[in-house]
Protein backbone atom coordinates (compact mmCIF):
# COMPACT_ATOMS: atom_id res chain seq x y z
CA UNK A 1 0.00 0.00 0.00
CA UNK A 2 1.25 3.46 -0.92
CA UNK A 3 1.99 5.81 1.95
CA UNK A 4 -0.54 8.56 2.50
CA UNK A 5 -0.08 12.20 1.56
CA UNK A 6 -2.10 15.20 2.69
CA UNK A 7 -2.09 18.89 1.98
CA UNK A 8 -4.06 21.50 3.85
CA UNK A 9 -4.72 25.19 3.27
CA UNK A 10 -5.16 27.34 6.40
CA UNK A 11 -4.77 31.14 6.60
CA UNK A 12 -3.16 31.61 3.23
CA UNK A 13 -3.94 32.84 -0.25
CA UNK A 14 -3.85 29.54 -2.11
CA UNK A 15 -0.66 30.34 -3.92
CA UNK A 16 1.09 27.39 -2.28
CA UNK A 17 -1.51 25.04 -3.74
CA UNK A 18 -0.97 26.51 -7.18
CA UNK A 19 2.77 26.23 -6.74
CA UNK A 20 2.43 22.51 -6.07
CA UNK A 21 0.36 22.07 -9.20
CA UNK A 22 2.97 24.11 -11.04
CA UNK A 23 5.49 21.29 -10.81
CA UNK A 24 3.96 19.93 -14.01
CA UNK A 25 4.53 16.23 -14.69
CA UNK A 26 6.26 15.85 -11.35
CA UNK A 27 2.80 15.67 -9.84
CA UNK A 28 2.51 12.25 -11.50
CA UNK A 29 5.46 11.06 -9.40
CA UNK A 30 3.53 12.22 -6.38
CA UNK A 31 0.54 10.23 -7.47
CA UNK A 32 2.68 7.20 -8.32
CA UNK A 33 4.30 7.08 -4.90
CA UNK A 34 1.57 8.34 -2.58
CA UNK A 35 -2.07 7.87 -1.93
CA UNK A 36 -3.67 11.26 -1.50
CA UNK A 37 -5.59 10.96 1.75
CA UNK A 38 -6.70 14.54 2.18
CA UNK A 39 -6.30 17.60 -0.03
CA UNK A 40 -9.34 19.89 0.07
CA UNK A 41 -8.20 21.92 -2.89
CA UNK A 42 -7.88 18.85 -5.05
CA UNK A 43 -10.44 16.37 -3.79
CA UNK A 44 -13.41 16.07 -1.52
CA UNK A 45 -12.59 14.54 1.85
CA UNK A 46 -14.58 15.65 4.90
CA UNK A 47 -12.99 16.68 8.18
CA UNK A 48 -14.95 13.88 9.83
CA UNK A 49 -13.19 11.37 7.62
CA UNK A 50 -9.83 12.73 8.68
CA UNK A 51 -10.85 12.56 12.29
CA UNK A 52 -11.71 8.94 11.78
CA UNK A 53 -8.26 8.08 10.46
CA UNK A 54 -5.80 6.34 12.68
CA UNK A 55 -3.22 8.50 14.37
CA UNK A 56 0.00 8.84 12.37
CA UNK A 57 -1.62 7.12 9.45
CA UNK A 58 -0.66 9.90 7.05
CA UNK A 59 3.04 9.82 6.23
CA UNK A 60 3.39 13.45 5.29
CA UNK A 61 1.20 16.52 5.41
CA UNK A 62 2.11 19.73 3.65
CA UNK A 63 0.43 22.37 5.75
CA UNK A 64 0.21 25.80 4.19
CA UNK A 65 -1.22 28.87 5.84
CA UNK A 66 -0.96 30.39 9.28
CA UNK A 67 -3.25 29.95 12.26
CA UNK A 68 -5.79 32.75 12.13
CA UNK A 69 -9.04 31.06 13.17
CA UNK A 70 -10.22 28.35 15.51
CA UNK A 71 -10.73 26.18 12.48
CA UNK A 72 -7.09 26.60 11.46
CA UNK A 73 -5.98 25.65 14.94
CA UNK A 74 -8.28 22.67 15.07
CA UNK A 75 -7.01 21.37 11.74
CA UNK A 76 -3.39 21.97 12.67
CA UNK A 77 -3.80 19.89 15.80
CA UNK A 78 -5.81 17.24 13.97
CA UNK A 79 -3.31 16.87 11.14
CA UNK A 80 -0.44 16.84 13.61
CA UNK A 81 -2.05 13.86 15.30
CA UNK A 82 -2.77 12.06 12.08
CA UNK A 83 0.59 12.67 10.39
CA UNK A 84 4.01 11.17 10.91
CA UNK A 85 5.63 14.16 9.26
CA UNK A 86 4.11 17.61 9.40
CA UNK A 87 5.70 20.07 7.00
CA UNK A 88 5.17 23.80 7.41
CA UNK A 89 4.79 24.57 3.74
CA UNK A 90 5.22 28.10 2.47
CA UNK A 91 5.78 31.40 4.20
CA UNK A 92 2.38 31.57 5.96
CA UNK A 93 2.80 28.32 7.82
CA UNK A 94 6.41 29.13 8.64
CA UNK A 95 6.32 32.77 9.60
CA UNK A 96 2.86 34.20 9.10
CA UNK A 97 3.54 35.90 5.78
CA UNK A 98 1.26 38.69 4.52
CA UNK A 99 -1.74 37.57 6.63
CA UNK A 100 0.59 37.89 9.60
CA UNK A 101 0.99 41.61 8.90
CA UNK A 102 -2.52 41.97 10.29
CA UNK A 103 -0.84 41.41 13.65
CA UNK A 104 0.09 45.09 13.54
CA UNK A 105 -3.58 45.82 14.27
CA UNK A 106 -6.34 44.40 16.43
CA UNK A 107 -9.22 42.33 15.13
CA UNK A 108 -11.43 45.37 15.45
CA UNK A 109 -9.11 47.37 13.23
CA UNK A 110 -9.01 44.54 10.71
CA UNK A 111 -12.79 44.59 10.46
CA UNK A 112 -12.81 48.37 10.23
CA UNK A 113 -10.33 48.16 7.44
CA UNK A 114 -12.20 45.47 5.55
CA UNK A 115 -15.81 46.44 6.10
CA UNK A 116 -15.81 50.14 6.80
CA UNK A 117 -13.49 51.77 4.39
CA UNK A 118 -14.32 54.36 1.77
CA UNK A 119 -14.28 51.82 -1.01
CA UNK A 120 -16.75 49.48 0.68
CA UNK A 121 -20.46 50.03 0.45
CA UNK A 122 -21.75 48.94 3.84
CA UNK A 123 -24.23 51.52 5.13
CA UNK A 124 -25.52 49.22 7.86
CA UNK A 125 -21.98 48.66 9.09
CA UNK A 126 -22.50 44.92 8.92
CA UNK A 127 -19.82 42.71 10.31
CA UNK A 128 -19.27 38.99 9.90
CA UNK A 129 -20.64 37.05 12.81
CA UNK A 130 -19.51 33.72 14.15
CA UNK A 131 -23.08 32.55 14.09
CA UNK A 132 -26.19 33.70 12.32
CA UNK A 133 -29.74 32.51 12.29
CA UNK A 134 -31.25 31.93 8.86
CA UNK A 135 -34.49 30.23 8.04
CA UNK A 136 -32.66 27.01 7.38
CA UNK A 137 -30.86 27.04 10.70
CA UNK A 138 -27.72 28.56 12.25
CA UNK A 139 -24.83 29.44 10.01
CA UNK A 140 -21.44 29.65 11.66
CA UNK A 141 -18.03 30.99 10.82
CA UNK A 142 -14.92 30.04 12.73
CA UNK A 143 -13.94 32.77 15.22
CA UNK A 144 -10.97 34.92 14.38
CA UNK A 145 -8.16 34.60 16.88
CA UNK A 146 -6.38 37.58 18.40
CA UNK A 147 -3.30 37.22 16.27
CA UNK A 148 -1.98 35.10 13.46
CA UNK A 149 0.32 32.37 14.70
CA UNK A 150 2.65 30.18 12.76
CA UNK A 151 2.22 26.46 12.60
CA UNK A 152 5.16 25.77 14.92
CA UNK A 153 3.67 28.12 17.52
CA UNK A 154 0.66 25.78 17.72
CA UNK A 155 2.00 22.28 17.11
CA UNK A 156 5.34 20.61 16.65
CA UNK A 157 6.63 20.82 13.10
CA UNK A 158 9.01 18.38 11.46
CA UNK A 159 10.20 20.29 8.40
CA UNK A 160 10.03 23.76 6.96
CA UNK A 161 9.66 24.66 3.30
CA UNK A 162 9.86 28.46 3.00
CA UNK A 163 8.80 30.80 0.22
CA UNK A 164 5.78 32.73 -0.88
CA UNK A 165 5.09 30.49 -2.52
CA UNK A 166 7.87 27.93 -2.50
CA UNK A 167 9.51 27.87 -5.92
CA UNK A 168 8.26 24.97 -8.02
CA UNK A 169 11.74 23.61 -8.68
CA UNK A 170 12.33 23.57 -4.94
CA UNK A 171 9.00 21.76 -4.35
CA UNK A 172 9.99 19.20 -6.92
CA UNK A 173 13.31 18.72 -5.14
CA UNK A 174 11.55 18.25 -1.81
CA UNK A 175 9.19 15.69 -3.36
CA UNK A 176 12.20 13.86 -4.81
CA UNK A 177 13.69 13.60 -1.33
CA UNK A 178 10.39 12.29 0.08
CA UNK A 179 10.03 9.75 -2.71
CA UNK A 180 13.61 8.62 -2.23
CA UNK A 181 12.88 8.12 1.46
CA UNK A 182 9.71 6.17 0.66
CA UNK A 183 11.67 3.96 -1.70
CA UNK A 184 14.25 3.42 1.00
CA UNK A 185 16.92 5.12 -1.08
CA UNK A 186 17.55 7.97 1.33
CA UNK A 187 17.46 8.85 5.02
CA UNK A 188 15.06 11.42 6.36
CA UNK A 189 16.71 14.81 6.84
CA UNK A 190 17.22 15.78 10.52
CA UNK A 191 14.07 16.94 12.24
CA UNK A 192 13.55 20.67 12.08
CA UNK A 193 15.46 21.01 8.82
CA UNK A 194 14.62 23.67 6.27
CA UNK A 195 13.98 21.99 2.94
CA UNK A 196 13.79 23.44 -0.52
CA UNK A 197 15.96 26.47 0.15
CA UNK A 198 19.56 27.60 0.14
CA UNK A 199 21.66 28.33 3.16
CA UNK A 200 22.96 31.79 2.47
CA UNK A 201 21.03 34.90 1.41
CA UNK A 202 19.46 36.08 -1.82
CA UNK A 203 22.48 38.24 -2.69
CA UNK A 204 24.44 35.05 -3.17
CA UNK A 205 22.31 34.23 -6.19
CA UNK A 206 21.77 37.79 -7.39
CA UNK A 207 23.74 38.65 -10.51
CA UNK A 208 23.80 42.40 -9.85
CA UNK A 209 27.17 44.06 -9.19
CA UNK A 210 27.69 45.40 -5.71
CA UNK A 211 29.94 47.79 -3.89
CA UNK A 212 30.40 49.34 -0.46
CA UNK A 213 27.05 50.77 0.61
CA UNK A 214 26.23 54.34 1.58
CA UNK A 215 22.54 55.09 1.59
CA UNK A 216 21.66 58.75 1.55
CA UNK A 217 18.13 58.34 0.26
CA UNK A 218 15.60 55.54 0.26
CA UNK A 219 13.13 55.60 -2.58
CA UNK A 220 10.27 53.56 -3.84
CA UNK A 221 10.83 52.06 -7.23
CA UNK A 222 8.42 54.39 -9.01
CA UNK A 223 10.34 57.37 -7.66
CA UNK A 224 13.57 56.43 -9.40
CA UNK A 225 14.05 58.17 -12.74
CA UNK A 226 16.17 55.35 -14.12
CA UNK A 227 16.78 51.91 -12.75
CA UNK A 228 20.24 50.58 -13.44
CA UNK A 229 19.91 47.03 -14.66
CA UNK A 230 23.35 45.95 -13.47
CA UNK A 231 23.84 47.52 -10.07
CA UNK A 232 22.68 46.36 -6.63
CA UNK A 233 19.19 47.71 -5.97
CA UNK A 234 20.02 48.69 -2.40
CA UNK A 235 22.84 50.86 -3.71
CA UNK A 236 20.27 52.57 -5.92
CA UNK A 237 18.27 53.45 -2.83
CA UNK A 238 15.64 50.75 -3.08
CA UNK A 239 14.76 48.89 0.09
CA UNK A 240 15.81 45.40 -0.97
CA UNK A 241 15.53 42.65 1.61
CA UNK A 242 17.82 40.34 -0.30
CA UNK A 243 20.79 40.57 2.07
CA UNK A 244 18.70 39.28 4.97
CA UNK A 245 16.57 36.75 3.12
CA UNK A 246 17.31 33.06 2.73
CA UNK A 247 18.43 32.06 -0.71
CA UNK A 248 16.70 29.47 -2.85
CA UNK A 249 14.58 31.48 -5.26
CA UNK A 250 17.42 32.19 -7.69
CA UNK A 251 16.95 35.89 -6.88
CA UNK A 252 13.81 36.00 -8.96
CA UNK A 253 12.72 39.51 -8.09
CA UNK A 254 16.04 41.36 -8.29
CA UNK A 255 16.68 39.62 -11.62
CA UNK A 256 13.80 41.57 -13.11
CA UNK A 257 14.47 44.85 -11.30
CA UNK A 258 12.13 44.40 -8.36
CA UNK A 259 13.64 44.55 -4.90
CA UNK A 260 13.51 41.36 -2.85
CA UNK A 261 10.67 41.57 -0.35
CA UNK A 262 11.95 38.76 1.83
CA UNK A 263 9.56 35.87 1.22
CA UNK A 264 12.05 33.09 1.93
CA UNK A 265 12.41 34.35 5.48
CA UNK A 266 15.49 34.96 7.56
CA UNK A 267 18.89 33.59 6.68
CA UNK A 268 19.97 30.43 8.54
CA UNK A 269 20.50 30.82 12.27
CA UNK A 270 18.86 34.25 12.41
CA UNK A 271 16.42 34.83 15.22
CA UNK A 272 14.56 37.83 13.87
CA UNK A 273 14.69 38.85 10.23
CA UNK A 274 13.33 42.34 10.82
CA UNK A 275 15.98 43.09 13.41
CA UNK A 276 18.68 42.01 11.00
CA UNK A 277 17.31 44.27 8.30
CA UNK A 278 16.99 47.18 10.70
CA UNK A 279 20.56 46.75 11.86
CA UNK A 280 21.92 46.38 8.36
CA UNK A 281 20.05 49.24 6.73
CA UNK A 282 20.61 51.66 9.60
CA UNK A 283 24.32 50.83 9.61
CA UNK A 284 24.86 52.01 6.07
CA UNK A 285 22.82 55.20 6.23
CA UNK A 286 25.13 57.98 5.23
CA UNK A 287 24.27 60.51 7.94
CA UNK A 288 25.41 61.36 11.43
CA UNK A 289 23.03 63.98 12.73
CA UNK A 290 19.67 62.80 14.02
CA UNK A 291 17.80 65.13 11.66
CA UNK A 292 19.77 63.93 8.65
CA UNK A 293 19.24 60.31 9.67
CA UNK A 294 15.53 60.99 9.96
CA UNK A 295 15.43 62.50 6.50
CA UNK A 296 16.79 59.26 5.09
CA UNK A 297 14.43 57.17 7.19
CA UNK A 298 11.47 59.21 5.97
CA UNK A 299 11.91 57.27 2.74
CA UNK A 300 10.67 54.20 4.62
CA UNK A 301 7.09 55.06 5.55
CA UNK A 302 6.23 51.64 7.00
CA UNK A 303 9.32 50.16 8.61
CA UNK A 304 7.61 47.34 10.51
CA UNK A 305 5.66 46.32 7.43
CA UNK A 306 8.78 46.48 5.32
CA UNK A 307 11.17 44.64 7.58
CA UNK A 308 8.65 42.09 8.77
CA UNK A 309 6.64 41.79 5.60
CA UNK A 310 6.71 37.99 5.82
CA UNK A 311 8.10 37.18 9.23
CA UNK A 312 6.08 39.28 11.62
CA UNK A 313 4.12 36.46 13.24
CA UNK A 314 7.33 34.54 13.81
CA UNK A 315 9.38 37.49 15.06
CA UNK A 316 10.43 38.11 18.63
CA UNK A 317 7.60 40.54 19.24
CA UNK A 318 5.10 38.77 16.97
CA UNK A 319 2.43 41.44 16.95
CA UNK A 320 1.30 44.83 18.06
CA UNK A 321 0.89 45.12 21.79
CA UNK A 322 -2.83 45.84 21.61
CA UNK A 323 -3.46 42.77 19.46
CA UNK A 324 -1.45 40.58 21.79
CA UNK A 325 -3.32 41.94 24.75
CA UNK A 326 -6.47 40.35 23.40
CA UNK A 327 -4.99 36.95 24.07
CA UNK A 328 -5.98 35.34 27.30
Amino acid at each position, binding site marked *: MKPKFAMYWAAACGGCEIAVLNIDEKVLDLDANFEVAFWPAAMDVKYKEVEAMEDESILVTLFNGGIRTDENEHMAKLLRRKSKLLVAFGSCANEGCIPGLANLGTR*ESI*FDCAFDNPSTENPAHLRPQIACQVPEGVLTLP*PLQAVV*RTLDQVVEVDYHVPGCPPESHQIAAVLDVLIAVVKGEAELPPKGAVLGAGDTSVCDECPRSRDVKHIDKLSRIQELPVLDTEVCLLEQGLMCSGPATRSGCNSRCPNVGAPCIGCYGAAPGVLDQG*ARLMAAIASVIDAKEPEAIDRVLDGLPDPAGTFYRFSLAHSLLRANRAALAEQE
Partner: protein
Amino acid sequence: MTDQFEPVIIGFTCNWCSYRAADLAGTARIKYPPNVRLIRLMCSGRLDPTFVLKALSEGADGVLIAGCHPGECHYLEQNYKALRRHRLMQRTLAQFGIEPERVRLTWASAAEGAKFAEDITEMVEQVRKLGPLNWPANLPTKPVPVGMVAAEIPVLSEEVA
Protein backbone atom coordinates in the same frame (compact mmCIF):
# COMPACT_ATOMS: atom_id res chain seq x y z
CA MET B 1 9.53 48.44 49.16
CA THR B 2 6.11 49.87 48.56
CA ASP B 3 3.53 48.46 46.22
CA GLN B 4 4.55 50.74 43.40
CA PHE B 5 5.44 49.13 40.12
CA GLU B 6 9.15 48.34 39.88
CA PRO B 7 10.14 48.16 36.22
CA VAL B 8 12.95 45.94 35.06
CA ILE B 9 15.22 47.55 32.51
CA ILE B 10 18.03 45.94 30.58
CA GLY B 11 20.92 48.31 29.94
CA PHE B 12 23.41 47.78 27.14
CA THR B 13 26.66 49.57 27.84
CA CYS B 14 29.89 49.93 25.96
CA ASN B 15 33.08 48.64 27.47
CA TRP B 16 34.91 51.97 27.23
CA CYS B 17 32.49 54.65 28.27
CA SER B 18 29.15 53.83 29.74
CA TYR B 19 30.18 50.61 31.51
CA ARG B 20 33.03 52.55 33.07
CA ALA B 21 30.62 55.36 33.89
CA ALA B 22 28.57 52.77 35.78
CA ASP B 23 31.77 51.62 37.50
CA LEU B 24 32.56 55.20 38.40
CA ALA B 25 29.06 55.77 39.76
CA GLY B 26 29.79 52.79 42.01
CA THR B 27 33.22 53.99 43.08
CA ALA B 28 31.72 57.37 43.87
CA ARG B 29 28.84 55.69 45.73
CA ILE B 30 26.26 57.58 43.71
CA LYS B 31 22.86 56.06 44.36
CA TYR B 32 20.34 55.16 41.69
CA PRO B 33 17.37 52.80 41.60
CA PRO B 34 18.12 49.07 41.32
CA ASN B 35 15.86 48.54 38.32
CA VAL B 36 18.49 48.47 35.62
CA ARG B 37 20.52 45.36 34.86
CA LEU B 38 23.54 46.00 32.73
CA ILE B 39 25.07 44.02 29.92
CA ARG B 40 28.54 44.88 28.71
CA LEU B 41 29.22 45.07 24.99
CA MET B 42 32.50 46.21 23.49
CA CYS B 43 30.80 49.13 21.75
CA SER B 44 27.33 50.53 21.30
CA GLY B 45 27.92 49.63 17.64
CA ARG B 46 27.59 45.98 18.73
CA LEU B 47 24.01 46.70 19.74
CA ASP B 48 21.94 44.39 17.62
CA PRO B 49 18.24 45.33 17.53
CA THR B 50 17.64 41.64 18.16
CA PHE B 51 18.97 42.16 21.69
CA VAL B 52 16.45 44.90 22.33
CA LEU B 53 13.55 42.87 20.95
CA LYS B 54 14.73 39.85 22.90
CA ALA B 55 14.84 41.80 26.15
CA LEU B 56 11.41 43.32 25.57
CA SER B 57 9.87 39.99 24.64
CA GLU B 58 11.49 38.28 27.64
CA GLY B 59 9.83 40.52 30.18
CA ALA B 60 11.92 43.70 30.35
CA ASP B 61 9.85 46.88 30.70
CA GLY B 62 12.46 48.99 29.00
CA VAL B 63 15.88 48.96 27.38
CA LEU B 64 18.63 51.47 27.94
CA ILE B 65 21.39 51.78 25.36
CA ALA B 66 24.40 53.78 26.46
CA GLY B 67 27.41 54.60 24.33
CA CYS B 68 30.25 57.06 24.16
CA HIS B 69 29.40 60.62 23.20
CA PRO B 70 29.18 61.26 19.45
CA GLY B 71 32.69 61.87 18.20
CA GLU B 72 34.22 60.18 21.24
CA CYS B 73 33.77 56.55 20.31
CA HIS B 74 36.74 54.37 21.15
CA TYR B 75 36.19 52.76 17.79
CA LEU B 76 36.06 56.21 16.19
CA GLU B 77 32.49 56.40 14.93
CA GLN B 78 30.64 53.21 15.68
CA ASN B 79 28.29 54.91 18.13
CA TYR B 80 26.78 56.73 15.15
CA LYS B 81 25.68 53.34 13.93
CA ALA B 82 23.98 52.80 17.27
CA LEU B 83 22.31 56.18 16.86
CA ARG B 84 21.01 55.27 13.41
CA ARG B 85 19.78 51.90 14.55
CA HIS B 86 18.06 53.49 17.49
CA ARG B 87 16.26 56.03 15.30
CA LEU B 88 15.07 53.28 12.99
CA MET B 89 14.14 50.97 15.85
CA GLN B 90 12.03 53.69 17.46
CA ARG B 91 10.01 54.07 14.28
CA THR B 92 9.50 50.34 14.01
CA LEU B 93 8.68 49.84 17.69
CA ALA B 94 6.06 52.56 17.50
CA GLN B 95 4.16 50.35 15.08
CA PHE B 96 4.25 47.60 17.67
CA GLY B 97 2.69 49.97 20.20
CA ILE B 98 5.87 50.39 22.25
CA GLU B 99 6.33 53.86 23.69
CA PRO B 100 9.57 55.61 22.72
CA GLU B 101 10.51 56.17 26.37
CA ARG B 102 10.93 52.44 26.81
CA VAL B 103 13.93 52.25 24.53
CA ARG B 104 16.29 55.04 25.40
CA LEU B 105 19.62 55.92 23.87
CA THR B 106 21.99 57.96 25.97
CA TRP B 107 25.63 58.97 25.90
CA ALA B 108 27.89 58.73 28.90
CA SER B 109 31.65 59.10 28.94
CA ALA B 110 33.79 57.12 31.36
CA ALA B 111 33.94 60.22 33.54
CA GLU B 112 30.18 60.72 33.71
CA GLY B 113 29.19 58.43 36.54
CA ALA B 114 26.83 60.99 37.95
CA LYS B 115 25.24 61.69 34.60
CA PHE B 116 24.76 58.01 33.94
CA ALA B 117 23.12 57.56 37.33
CA GLU B 118 20.84 60.51 36.57
CA ASP B 119 19.90 59.04 33.21
CA ILE B 120 19.04 55.75 34.85
CA THR B 121 16.98 57.43 37.55
CA GLU B 122 15.10 59.46 34.98
CA MET B 123 14.43 56.49 32.78
CA VAL B 124 13.24 54.31 35.66
CA GLU B 125 10.75 57.01 36.60
CA GLN B 126 9.54 57.38 33.02
CA VAL B 127 9.06 53.66 32.59
CA ARG B 128 7.44 53.41 35.99
CA LYS B 129 4.87 55.94 34.80
CA LEU B 130 4.23 53.95 31.65
CA GLY B 131 3.55 50.83 33.68
CA PRO B 132 4.55 47.23 32.98
CA LEU B 133 5.18 46.22 29.41
CA ASN B 134 4.73 42.57 30.20
CA TRP B 135 5.10 41.62 26.56
CA PRO B 136 2.57 38.90 25.99
CA ALA B 137 4.06 37.40 22.86
CA ASN B 138 4.58 34.05 24.41
CA LEU B 139 1.17 33.58 25.94
CA PRO B 140 -0.95 30.87 24.40
CA THR B 141 -3.58 32.58 22.36
CA LYS B 142 -7.25 31.96 22.97
CA PRO B 143 -9.97 33.04 20.59
CA VAL B 144 -12.39 35.71 21.65
CA PRO B 145 -15.50 36.23 19.54
CA VAL B 146 -15.56 39.69 18.13
CA GLY B 147 -18.39 42.06 18.72
CA MET B 148 -20.98 39.65 20.08
CA VAL B 149 -22.03 37.41 22.86
CA ALA B 150 -22.76 33.88 21.81
CA ALA B 151 -26.25 34.04 23.29
CA GLU B 152 -27.36 36.79 20.95
CA ILE B 153 -27.18 35.08 17.63
CA PRO B 154 -28.67 37.54 15.17
CA VAL B 155 -31.29 36.58 12.67
CA LEU B 156 -30.35 37.35 9.12
CA SER B 157 -33.37 39.17 7.81
CA GLU B 158 -34.77 38.60 4.36
CA GLU B 159 -34.19 42.24 3.35
CA VAL B 160 -30.54 42.26 4.08
CA ALA B 161 -30.00 38.84 2.62
